[in-house]
C-alpha cells in the first residue's frame, strides 16, 4: 500500500501514461472502497471511482508534489466527486444487499461472521464524517498528513478526528446490539 509514486509534470506522454497507470493499479481498490464507504451505493461508487480517475488523468499536470503526495491529491479528487454525487443524488442507498459474501475459515466461521457483522453495523451507524475518516485510514491507508490534505484541515486536526472516529467505532463495536 505504501508505494512511492511519482508523476512529474515534465514527463513525456508515454511516461505520464505509464505513471498514471501505476497510480491506478496501486489505488483503484482503495478509491473504490472509500467511495463506497461514503456513498454506500455500489453503482454510485463505481461511477465516482471512474470519474475520479478520469479527472485525475485529465488534470495530471495540475499535480504539484510540493502541495502533498499524489495519493492525497487523488483522494481529494475522489472526495469531491463523491460529495458532488452525494449532493446530486440526495440519497444514500444501503450496501447490505450488495455486500460480497464472506468466505471465513471453517473453524471460526460463526465467530468471524458475527464479528464482521458487528463491525459492519458499527460502521453503518457512524456519522458519515467518521465513516469517511475510517475509510481513508483503514482502506486507503493514508497518513494523517495526507488525510489533512484531502479534507483541507491541519495534520493535528486530522489526527484528532481520526482518533475520535476510531474511538467511536470501537465503542459502537462493543455496544450491546
Amino acid at each position: 500500500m505504501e508505494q512511492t509514486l511519482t508523476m512529474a509534470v515534465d514527463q513525456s506522454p508515454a511516461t505520464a501514461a505509464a505513471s498514471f497507470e501505476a497510480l491506478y493499479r496501486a489505488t483503484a481498490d482503495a478509491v473504490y472502497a472509500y467511495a463506497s464507504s461514503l456513498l454506500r451505493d455500489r453503482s454510485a461508487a463505481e461511477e465516482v471511482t471512474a470519474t475520479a480517475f478520469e479527472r485525475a488523468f485529465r488534470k495530471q499536470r495540475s499535480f504539484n508534489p510540493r502541495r502533498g503526495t499524489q495519493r492525497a491529491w487523488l483522494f481529494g479528487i475522489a472526495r469531491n466527486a463523491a460529495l458532488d454525487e452525494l449532493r446530486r443524488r440526495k440519497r444514500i442507498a444501503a450496501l447490505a444487499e450488495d455486500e460480497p459474501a464472506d468466505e471465513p475459515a471453517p473453524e471460526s466461521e460463526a465467530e468471524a461472521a458475527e464479528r464482521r457483522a458487528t463491525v459492519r453495523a458499527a460502521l453503518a451507524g457512524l456519522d458519515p464524517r467518521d465513516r469517511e475518516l475510517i475509510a481513508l485510514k483503514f482502506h486507503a491507508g493514508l497518513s494523517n498528513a495526507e488525510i489533512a490534505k484531502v479534507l483541507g484541515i491541519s495534520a493535528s486536526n486530522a489526527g484528532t478526528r481520526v482518533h475520535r472516529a476510531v474511538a467511536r467505532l470501537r465503542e459502537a463495536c462493543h455496544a450491546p446490539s
Partner: protein
Amino acid sequence: MRRRETTLDPAVAAELEALEAALAGDPVAEPDLAALVRDVRADAPAMAPAFRARLDARVGRGFPKPARTRPRRNLVPALAVAGCVLAALVAVALVGGGSSNDSASRTPAVSAQSGPEQAQGDTAAGSGSSGAAAPSLAATPRTRRVERTTRLALTTTDVQRTADDVVNATQSVGGFVQSSQVATTNGRGSASFTLRVPSARLDDAVARLSKLGHVRSLEQSAQDITGAYDSAAARLAEARAERRGLLRALAKATTAQEISSLRARIADNRRALQRYQREFESVRNRANFATIEVDVTSSTRKGEPVPGGGGSWSPGDAARDAVRVLEVSAGVALVGLAILVPLALLGAAGGLAAGAWRRRRREAALQT
C-alpha cells in the same frame, strides 16, 4: 494557505501510534485494535470484476473522449491577435495626435485672382490718383482682392546668420522688412520678423525662407478684402469726379461770391480726396503685399536635429519614433492594467468566494 498547527494531546498521540502499529501489521500492536483493523479491512467494499475490467480498459485507452460533432474553436489566438491589433491602433492614434505643436498647417488660401488682373486694377486706380479717370466699377469685371498672411517658425543652429538670410531672401523677392527683433548671443537666441512681400511672390518667398532652417510650423491664412477695396476705390473716384465738376464750375463762374464759394468747396474736396487716397492705398497695399511673420529660434544644441523638423527620415528620427512608440505602448499597457487589475482582483475574490461556497455545499452533503 497555511493552517494553524496545534499540538496533539499526548494520550491521543499515543493511541494514534498504536493505531498506526495495528494498521502496519506490527506484531506488538494492541490485539483488540489489530482485530478491528483486520475486520474493517476484510469488510472493505470490493470492485465488481466487470466494473474493474471496464475501468482497466478505459485507463488503458487513456479515457478517450467521445467524438465531438462540431470541433470546438480555440478562441485564444484570435483574441490575442485582436488585442494586439487594438493596442497597435491605439498606439498609432496616440502617436499621430501627440505632435500637434510640430505640425505644419496650411489654411487653404481663398481662391483669388491676384497678379495680372490685380495689377491692372491697381494701375487704373494709381493712374486716377495722378489725375487720370478713376476706374469704372460698373464696367470692369469684379476682381477679387485677397489679403494673405503667413506665419513661419524656424529653428536653426545660428540665429544671427539665419536672420541675415531672412532679410536677403525678402529683398530678393521684391519685399521689405516691416519690423524685426533679433536677440542673439554666440549665434544662439531668437529673432522675429514681419515681412511684406508682393502677393504674387508669396509662395516663392515662403519657399526661400523655409530653406533657412527647420520648419517647426507653417500657417497660412487669407482674407477676402474685395469689398473694402472697391469701397475705397469708389469713394476716391467720386471725390475725383466731384473735383472735376467743381473745377469746371469754377472756370465758368463770373461773380466773386460764386468763385469764393467754389474755391471753398474745392478745398474741402482736396482734403477729402487726400483722405480717400490714403485709405485706398492702404487697402491696395494689403492686397498687393502679403505679410510674413517669421520666428527664428535656436536649436537645443548646435548640430542637434530638431524634433519633428523637416528633411529626410534619419536614424535619429527613427530612434525618437521608437521611443515614442514605446512610451505609447507603456501608456496603453498602464491603462490596460488599470482596467485589468481591478477586474482580476474582483475575479479572484469571486473565485475564492465561489470556491468556499462550493466547499461548504460539498461538506453539507456529509451532514446526517
